[in-house]
């Protein structure tokens, strides 16, 4: 009964969808449902699997496992032309040898609809997209924005239950994009169609959507309204991807009490374990500037840089040994000393993406003074351990340095990077002997791109060696 109710206005459901290309897992057990007449945005960086998900819904790709339900019917094995969804492609994919009318009418002609009805529907759609009188033009005679509208009209004329849009505005300039965003939203509200919109632009997602699905590396990070996603990010990835943030390492002391930036604060979050490491997020617009000697100043710091951004100034403030991003309408000068204040409900607390504060690794003694882990060997004098015995290594994240791959002890792909006020917190991916996913945590000042292979050099004098019993 409850299930029935829940499904009532779900138009589309994805169940345990997994797919991989050439050994690389693109989607991993993705579960999602989409309600009728909803504007849903898949948001994430490139390579996060958002376009793949869209292509699975359209039927261009078949998942390795999992099922797609449309109106509670399993359509996993249906080819694209049998699905009641239509797609607006990234580069429009208008048919160059057909004129605007023929392009829009294409789907209806295939369905053998009577001519006068085709004519009526096409002209109505041309009105919707504001391009009346363009019937005889060829696609190449139109501007990017006009081509985009024709692509939308061509899809909508078939009256799909769901319209899929694959980064449709990315080829347009900023001003036109803003205008099209509003038009798309209006169009969606006036039609009985659910829109699934794929983008990597967080602002676009927040502006248009009823629901935002934040994705990263083939997994859904968070589903929520734009407000929820912005105000209550579930983890540091979402916080970092949705707008600029100050993301810091902290420790939850007890309910409503958190420690970060070398101080204790009241907060509004609970339900964490005592002394649980957490990520703390404070949005730059939530940091208020107060006089440095004011009682309300939580921190005192020095302005390191000021940039004018139109509506506000954006500045970096150095306080408590880290940099804070602050947005304010006050004009202050570089070098000024100020106080920073924020209230308990400006502090957003999230469990960590990776439950790992340092690197603990198993290693083997392979010679009387040599230890081997991964493919790295290092010497340690006075080891006094038998050859072949297992040891536990603790490698502090500060002791690992990024170097060019020629000088590196090991080269690994960067999986995640988040700026933590004083350094970048990076996680490098590797597989252990049992093929479990493992990560090496590195603190570094370097700014690197996720997915690149980087060389790591260990400072072995800082590695703690302990006999493993």
């Amino acid at each position, binding site marked *: 009964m409850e299930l029935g109710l829940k499904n009532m206005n779900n138009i589309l459901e994805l169940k345990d969808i997994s797919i991989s290309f050439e050994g690389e897992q693109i989607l991993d057990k993705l579960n999602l449902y989409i309600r009728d007449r909803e504007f849903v945005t898949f948001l994430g960086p490139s390579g996060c699997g958002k376009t793949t998900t869209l292509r699975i819904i359209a039927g261009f790709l078949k998942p390795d496992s999992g099922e797609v339900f449309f109106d509670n019917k399993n359509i996993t094995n249906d080819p694209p032309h049998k699905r009641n969804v239509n797609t607006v492609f990234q580069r429009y994919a208008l048919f160059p040898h057909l004129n605007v009318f023929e392009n829009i009418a294409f*789907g209806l002609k*295939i369905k053998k609809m009577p001519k006068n009805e085709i004519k009526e529907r096409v002209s109505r759609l041309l009105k919707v997209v504001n391009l009346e009188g363009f019937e005889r033009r060829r696609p190449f005679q139109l501007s990017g924005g006009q081509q985009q509208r024709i692509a939308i009209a061509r899809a909508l004329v078939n009256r799909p239950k769901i319209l899929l849009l694959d980064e449709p505005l990315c080829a347009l300039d900023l001003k036109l994009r803003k205008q099209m965003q509003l038009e798309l939203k209006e169009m969606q509200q006036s039609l009985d169609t659910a829109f699934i919109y794929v983008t990597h632009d967080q602002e676009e997602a927040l502006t248009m959507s009823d629901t935002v699905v934040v994705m990263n590396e083939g997994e859904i990070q968070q589903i929520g309204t734009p407000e929820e996603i912005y105000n209550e990010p579930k983890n540091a990835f979402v916080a970092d991807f949705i707008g600029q943030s100050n993301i810091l390492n902290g420790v939850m002391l007890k309910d409503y009490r958190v420690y970060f930036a070398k101080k204790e604060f009241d907060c509004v979050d609970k339900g964490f374990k005592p002394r649980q490491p957490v990520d703390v997020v404070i949005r730059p617009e939530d940091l208020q500037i107060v006089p440095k000697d004011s009682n309300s100043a939580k921190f005192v710091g020095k302005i390191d840089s000021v940039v004018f951004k139109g509506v506000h100034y954006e500045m970096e403030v150095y306080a408590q040994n880290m940099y804070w991003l602050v947005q304010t309408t006050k004009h202050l000068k570089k070098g000024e000393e100020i106080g920073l204040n924020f209230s308990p409900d400006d502090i957003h607390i999230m469990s960590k993406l990776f439950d790992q504060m340092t690197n603990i690794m198993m290693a083997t003694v392979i010679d009387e003074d040599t230890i081997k882990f991964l493919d790295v060997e290092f010497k340690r004098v006075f080891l006094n351990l038998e050859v072949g015995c297992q040891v536990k290594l603790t490698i502090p994240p500060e002791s690992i340095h990024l170097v060019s791959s020629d000088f590196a002890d090991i080269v690994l792909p960067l999986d995640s990077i988040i700026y933590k006020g004083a350094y970048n917190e990076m996680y490098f991916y590797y597989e252990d002997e049992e093929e479990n996913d493992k990560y090496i945590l590195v603190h570094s000042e370097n700014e690197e791109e996720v997915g690149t292979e980087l060389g790591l050099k260990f400072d072995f004098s800082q590695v703690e060696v302990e006999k493993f019993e």
Partner: protein
Amino acid sequence: MKNKCLFRICVTMVVIFLYLPIFVVIIFAFNKIKSRTLFTGFTLNWFIELFRDRVIISSLFNSFILATLASIIATVIGTLAALQIVKMKSKSQSVVMNLNYIPIVNSDVVMGISLMLLMIFILNVVGGSLGFLTVLIAHITICMPYVVLTVLPKIRQVDPNMLDAALDLGCTPSKAFIKIIFPQITSGIISALVMAFSISFDDFAVSYFTAGSSFQTLPVLIYSMARKRITPKINALFAILLVLILIMLIFMNVLDVRSKKLKNKK
């Protein structure tokens, strides 16, 4: 200044060397006597005689039928092959493209002899003798690589999303190809067809080895006539062919200019 003068002389020489022989051939098609050195007066007799000569006309007809069939079949197979080649991974694609180049680079005589040996080998098994069918197969073989080379770039230009878009709008895969992909590569297919036709029509070496004695193409006939004596009838034939080729070239150029105009508008 000197350089420019030299350059001009070079260009003129090239044009003269290219067109003087053709010019001479045409002039002597209208010569009153059989001489190839003296022009004594104007006549159209050779043209009339040409059309009376059954051997020449039938071999012209043979060549025409052969070239038409060979070019159509080669274009169909080559286009289908090119459509598959584009979908391949880049590594196997380059292997196939290199294999495709070899028959083009290879000399005609070698191609002709090897095709002949293959045909004889097969005919020994299945029975029959060299003739129309063997020369047709041989011509399809030599035309196909050119078709692939001509059509492939056109197919590459088609936005890969185009097929998805057609499927998305309700087409079955075959309908999507006919309605969307085919119209976009038609110009490539036409030029492949023309090229294949001219290769087949011109070919001497491959036809000579694979046609046997029962089926004579025009170039083979001319070759055998040249060993005895070429009559001005042949000049008349060349003149007619030249006019046909000119018409075809003009037609192709008009097509080309048109498609360029469309592109420039973009």
